[in-house]
């Protein structure tokens, strides 16, 4: 309602409104995923440091410099930590031109919930006044927003339905790195090359091909499908977006649900547009791999001015040296220690003799012993690393202690205050936390938030005591649980970790690419040859046949489901009727398809002998004759069933062919087919080729008996 009111107002004094409309943004300080676990059990993701500055500061500093005046920070998990942090940073005046308001909700479990919550709040206090920028708190960018917002507004003025503009960015050109650089799934977007309207959005790595609806092709003479784009998750939205989320309470994910809903909905006709950025930077920290990628981008200054040697949000700038080495002024570094290229070392950190740091970020107040090797790793604040440790491609959170001689293999994540025992080797890709892995993995409700932070701390202290007494999985003097990788996620582990992709996985990707290719190859070629074989006149005729094929498969699926779930016959009839209507089939077709499904089930049920098979078949017929019987009320339909049976015996289910007569008798006994149908079938077949008569001959005796029986009946009738 609020949106409508505002819409009315805007029409009346459009330009005026535009000029005084404040630029607003919604920042989701919760990603509603579990990708950063176990770290995010104790600290919200937006407060995790990227090159020693919390992520949210990058986002806020960028929004501020891009001219946003008011930002609503939506917090959910660890909301107190976030509000406290924002409180202190506002006291320090780190974002003087940005009004930061926080919205807290603990019930939201998805971005959709968050936006609904904001919408509800909004109607009370009317906070969101017009178009707003929607970003998540883990965005690192330096793109200008003013032009984008202007572009969006102008488009909106011309076309009421253009409710959203999303930002996309070209990813690196190689087909290999495109999908692996940020650890996200492959993205396929289809865009109108002229208007830049988004036509199709697909993040799906299962299917081998992108399918564009034919209606789409009819309405657009030209469509650009891109695989080399990454979604920056920066959206300029009109207020309608919020109300859409309110109306569709099942929208959860911004892309998966919302885009699908909007793009698939012709009735409302809302449109989403894309904006491609060229020279500026925008990326989202979505998982450990993008954490690694974005950190490196920051060190290599792609994100300028948001780099470690610039104070952009109250952070203490570091000094930049050659080869991208950033060092705090008070770092105590032994003469023999070597800090190599692309590294960041924070305030109050000491590096002992012979230490080697390369491509790594080391936080504030760390103490690194002698002969320690740190490569490609992220060591946060107040970490103690004792002599002789080796750390490669790992993330080490605040307060961790790594005892002498321990080794972290690539991809390890050590959460807060974990202690790694002396000489212990932490296996690759393990995630270690003081907290036990939550038993119940509720993948739908991906809750990042634990209890309030103080509670967690209490529990932690108690826990660490307990742990120390009984020893741990991290060596005799270590503290922490090694989390088990949950099933399914195992394959993803390498994809999302900070470690470089291992050789064998690369090989696998290549292999997958090849396989992909070959798999697809088979399908079209088959149809190709079919097509060129049969005369093209036939293809037209074949079309309904094809339809029938689909229909048959659908019926089979329905039937199997009915069998598995024990659905009642009446419900089965309902379902099949609806299929029949949607495929525009005759009831004879239904009868054929159901019978086919039944016989197929019989054949597929394990059996060792023909007798068993025949028993299977009879029991299935006995059980489901109600279903079949609904479609075989007329003789024609019954004949159809017999013909279908014959066809099956010849083609798809040869096993049944010796049982033809038996099963026909069963069908007769169960009153599925009546003697009229059988006799007429026999008559029709009598004139056929010898080859076609195999089954007729098989049941000659039965037919003979039927004939006699009917004659007798006739005679009896005559006698009466």
């Amino acid at each position, binding site marked *: 309602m609020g949106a409508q009111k505002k819409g009315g107002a805007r029409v009346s004094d459009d330009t005026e409104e535009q000029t005084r409309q404040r630029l607003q943004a919604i920042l989701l300080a919760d990603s509603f995923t579990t990708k950063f676990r176990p770290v995010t059990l104790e600290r919200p993701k937006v407060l995790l440091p990227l090159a020693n500055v919390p992520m949210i500061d990058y986002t806020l500093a960028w929004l501020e410099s891009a001219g946003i005046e008011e930002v609503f920070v939506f917090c959910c998990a660890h909301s107190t930590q976030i509000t406290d942090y924002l409180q202190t940073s506002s006291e320090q005046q780190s974002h003087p031109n940005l009004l930061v308001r926080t919205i807290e909700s603990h019930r939201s479990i998805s971005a959709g919930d968050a936006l609904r919550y904001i919408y509800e709040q909004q109607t009370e206090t009317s906070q969101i006044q017009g178009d707003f920028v929607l970003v998540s708190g883990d965005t690192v960018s330096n793109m200008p927003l003013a032009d984008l917002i202007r572009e969006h507004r102008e488009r909106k003025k011309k076309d009421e339905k253009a409710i959203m503009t999303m930002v996309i960015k070209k990813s690196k050109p190689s087909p290999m790195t495109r999908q692996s650089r940020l650890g996200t799934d492959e993205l*396929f977007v289809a865009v109108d090359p002229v208007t830049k309207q988004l036509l199709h959005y697909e993040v799906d790595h299962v299917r081998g091909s992108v399918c564009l609806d034919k209606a789409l092709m009819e309405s657009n003479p030209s469509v650009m499908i*891109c*695989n080399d784009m990454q979604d920056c998750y920066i959206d300029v939205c009109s207020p309608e977006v919020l109300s859409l989320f309110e109306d569709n309470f099942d929208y959860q994910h911004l892309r998966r649900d919302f885009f699908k809903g909007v793009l698939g909905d012709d009735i409302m006709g809302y449109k989403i547009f894309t904006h491609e950025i060229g020279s500026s930077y925008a990326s989202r920290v979505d998982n450990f791999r993008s954490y690694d990628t974005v950190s490196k981008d920051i060190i290599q200054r792609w994100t300028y001015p948001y780099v470690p040697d610039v104070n952009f949000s109250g952070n203490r700038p570091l000094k930049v040296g050659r080869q991208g080495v950033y060092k705090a002024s008070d770092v105590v570094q032994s003469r023999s220690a070597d800090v190599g290229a692309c590294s960041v070392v924070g305030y109050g950190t000491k590096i002992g003799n012979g230490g080697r740091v390369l491509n790594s970020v080391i936080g504030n107040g760390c103490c690194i012993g002698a002969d320690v090797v740190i490569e490609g790793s992220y060591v946060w604040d107040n970490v103690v690393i004792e002599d002789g440790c080796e750390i490669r491609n790992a993330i080490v959170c605040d307060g961790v202690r790594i005892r002498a001689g321990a080794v972290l293999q690539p991809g390890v994540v050590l959460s807060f205050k974990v202690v790694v025992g002396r000489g212990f080797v932490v296996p690759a890709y393990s995630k270690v936390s003081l907290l036990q892995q939550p038993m119940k993995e509720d993948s739908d409700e991906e809750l990042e938030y634990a209890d309030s932070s103080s509670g967690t701390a209490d529990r932690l202290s108690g826990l660490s005591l307990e742990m120390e007494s009984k020893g741990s999985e991290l060596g005799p003097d270590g503290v922490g649980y090694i989390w088990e990788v949950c099933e399914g996620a195992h394959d993803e582990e390498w994809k999302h970790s900070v470690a470089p992709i291992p050789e064998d996985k690369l090989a696998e990707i290549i292999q997958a690419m090849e396989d992909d290719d070959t798999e*697809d190859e088979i399908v079209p070629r088959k149809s190709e040859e079919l097509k060129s*074989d049969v*005369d093209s*006149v036939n293809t037209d005729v074949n079309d309904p046949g094809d339809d029938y094929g689909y229909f048959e498969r659908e019926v089979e699926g329905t039937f199997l489901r009915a069998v598995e779930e024990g659905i009642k016959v009446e419900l089965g009839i309902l379902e099949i009727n609806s299929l029949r209507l949607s495929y525009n089939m005759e009831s004879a077709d239904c009868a054929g398809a159901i019978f086919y499904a039944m016989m197929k089930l019989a054949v597929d049920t394990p059996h060792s002998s023909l007798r068993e098979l025949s028993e299977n078949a009879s029991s299935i017929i006995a059980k489901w004759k109600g279903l079949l019987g609904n479609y075989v009320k007329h003789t024609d339909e019954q004949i159809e069933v017999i013909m279908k049976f014959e066809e099956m015996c010849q083609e798809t289910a040869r096993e049944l062919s010796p049982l033809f007569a038996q099963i026909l008798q069963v069908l007769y006994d169960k009153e599925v087919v009546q003697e009229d149908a059988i006799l007429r079938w026999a008559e029709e077949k009598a004139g056929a080729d010898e080859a076609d008569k195999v089954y007729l001959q098989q049941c000659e005796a039965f037919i003979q008996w039927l004939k006699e029986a009917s004659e007798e009946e006739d005679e009896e009738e005559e006698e009466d």
Partner: protein
Amino acid sequence: MDFQVVILAGGFSSNLQPLVSKEVPKALLPVANRPVLSYVLDLLESSNLKDLIVVVEGEDAALKVGGWISSACVDRLHVEVAAVAENVGTAGALRAIAHHLTAKDILIVSGDIVSDVSPGAVAATHRRHDASVTAMLCAEPVSGPSESGVASGKDKTKKPACYDIIGLDSSKQFLLHIATGVEIKKDTRIKKSILRAAGKMEIRSDLMDSHIYAFKRSVLQKVLDQKPTFRSLKEDVLPYLVRTQLRSEVFPDEKTVEDNGKNNMQNNELVLSQILSNASLPSFHQVYESFLNSRKTHKCCVYIADESKYCVRLNSIQAYMDVNRDVIGDANHLSGYSFSAHHNIVHPSAELGSKTTVGPHCMLGEGSQVGDKCSVKRSVIGRHCRIGSNVKVVNSVVMDHATIGDGCSIQGSVICSNAQLQERVSLRDCQVEAGYVVYAGGEHKGETFARK
């Protein structure tokens, strides 16, 4: 240029009945009083392509076409006429004449094209990219789709008009996807592997394949040998090559053969082709090959004709009408005639009765007579036609030696040669077969007159 040109001139196409007949095969159908084949020959000649093989379906048709060629242009061009069996499809026709093909590259042109797009440019594009196949694409004709979806209209079917769906890379040089014929009516499925390799693909439904192709001979012959079921270039061979461009099956043998002797030369050619295509970046094919070194790729290129160019295939009656209208109308530079100040051509020997008007965009052939008070608008009238008085001819084609009686009215129709319309016949959207007599006073709409 080491290019051999194959013109697929068809036979007695059923799509164009009753316009074509035993006397007039498709290639000789008059467009503005010249056989359609002459447009193709002129076009090729303008690109200096003079080594031609004209493939005609059926012996009879081949004789007719051969006769015309020898009378018309034997002095200018080196033309061979080859007859193939009827209904073998375009691929089948090429299979039949494969032994004639010797050049490194083959240019294949459909014999029913009326166009001003330079085939030389297609050939040059082909050479520049060292492509396996290059297809020429042009914008959909303005008059609506005349594409029948059937290769060169030879297959004995009539299908509703449809467009091609074509996928191009971002530089608009490579063909990444093509769907023709019945596939158009389905949802478009695009393989992710090719999207991955190319990064971007632009899918166009406003372009159509105009049936001018340049093939590498070795590739073409390999495909024809390997896939005996392929019938049509457009529907089978081209889609196959496009589909398999990242996993080529047409190369390995050829490479080994050629590598022995011509290694150096090939390298040179490669360098040359890169220089020519301004390729500071390797094409995505090369990038892809470097990742998967077991793979061979081949390139499928496109030449996209400028939108201002004219290109229509004469493969339906509608297209025949359109082409005739355009050649004396909007695209009159194709006709090779010089137009009068009234934008029409009236042969000096034609006789016009009193108060007869011949409007703009009309053509009146040699020795034709038009009676009094007639009106001819946007129509082509052939040679030695006799048209009575009070006759209206609008948007129609009247072929040579036709006789039209007094008081006839002809709209949107085709009257074939030697046909006779008696008095007061009114035809609208009709076709009259050669030599047919339409009796006096009939009023017909949308009919086809032919002897069964």
